[in-house]
């Protein structure tokens, strides 16, 4: 039996098939569907979550590898300033990549990587937005970084 700790809550999980990724466990077993499945091969960033405070891709992590780790998903943020900034800066269109963008940006602020726009672009480069809201995403992250 694996125990996943997600947003402070412990979830016992029976992984009969150990191939279950953290992403599928979150969405299909725990009904935490805020984390999105884009490419399922580590190329898009839509499934970005925090593991012990560091950003990782839930699609490339086995649920069984997360036993004893602290996972934070978009549902675990409590009105984070980035969420408000994304709305005000219109930093999304379809919204599918947004939870991954925000989780990645939360980690980026903690890594002190938001000094310049070039830094923000570089350290957000693991999150694709096919609607092309990049400039507004940078604006939202920049604003929160300046006021942090």
């Amino acid at each position, binding site marked *: 039996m694996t125990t996943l700790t997600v947003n402070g809550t412990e979830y016992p999980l029976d992984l009969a098939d150990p191939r279950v990724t953290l992403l599928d466990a979150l969405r299909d077993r725990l009904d935490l569907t805020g984390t999105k499945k884009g490419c399922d091969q580590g190329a898009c960033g839509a499934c970005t979550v925090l593991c012990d405070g560091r950003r990782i891709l839930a699609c*490339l992590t086995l649920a069984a*590898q997360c036993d004893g780790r602290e996972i934070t998903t978009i549902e675990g943020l409590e009105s984070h300033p980035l969420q408000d900034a994304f709305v005000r800066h219109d930093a999304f269109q379809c919204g599918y990549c947004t939870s991954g963008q925000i989780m990645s940006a939360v980690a980026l602020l903690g890594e002190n990587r938001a000094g310049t726009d070039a830094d923000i672009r570089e350290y957000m*480069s693991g999150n694709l937005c096919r609607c092309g809201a990049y400039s507004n995403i940078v604006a939202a992250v920049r604003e929160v970084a300046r006021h942090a």
Partner: protein
Amino acid sequence: MDFLRATTWAEALRMKADRPDATPVQGGTDVMVEINLDKGRPKALLDLTPVAELTEWSVESGNIRIGAGVTYTRIIAELADRLPGLAQASRTVGSPQIRNRGTVAGNLGAASPAGDSHPPLLASGAIVEAESVDGTRMIPVGDFYTGVKRHALASHELIRAIHVPVKRGPQYFSKIGTRNAMVIAVCSFGIALNAEDRTVGTGIGSAAPTPRRAVEAEAFLAGNWPAGDLDPAVAKRFGELVAAAAAPIDDVRGSSGYRVHALAVMARRTLGWAWQELRNGGRS
């Protein structure tokens, strides 16, 4: 599929001896892609992430011994001054999320010719520390790659660490990709100059069945050791010899002809940076 979770290194070695068919997994950034896309179904996975010993690096007789669980993020943050070539290559791996999980040992275990860490490991003369219940083997990285996605590990061996010599001169890495992040290299090149004994190391990525050195180019440059201005003829010849050492294929990422051309350009360019650093007395 069985899931084995080792909590100590000794336990990991025993598990691998009992289950030589188990695929070791660290960050999963390569293994999991294969599983998710159903390109392969390992009989068993051996999770090494709980093994604390693997996440440490240390200094040992002029080398940095990098544990198999040290992530690219930590190499960039903690070792860029001593292993600049490897750190530069690490910065080009995937994305911040991938670099938080991926490891050099995983790159070696996958043994893809396109792996980003291979050129700097070849250029600096790294050694792979392989271990099993039978003992330890030190494998020069040039002997480690045996074919496309094949390596010299026995089925009951695991990578314990990689020993990378501390820089003894300028080191540079260059990589061609379709964008600046999250790309598999079209081709890549690493150079390491050893200013103490005036030798040259090189590594070619993604342009042959395995990562490989450009041995003739190394000997040529060692015989024309940087002094004064870089002679364009020397740079050109160095580039030609690097390109001649490659044996690329045409694939979805690039044509053979493009790869050969790009390698010559990258070799000249990285040589220029290295030469400049030597002239500046070690400052890039």
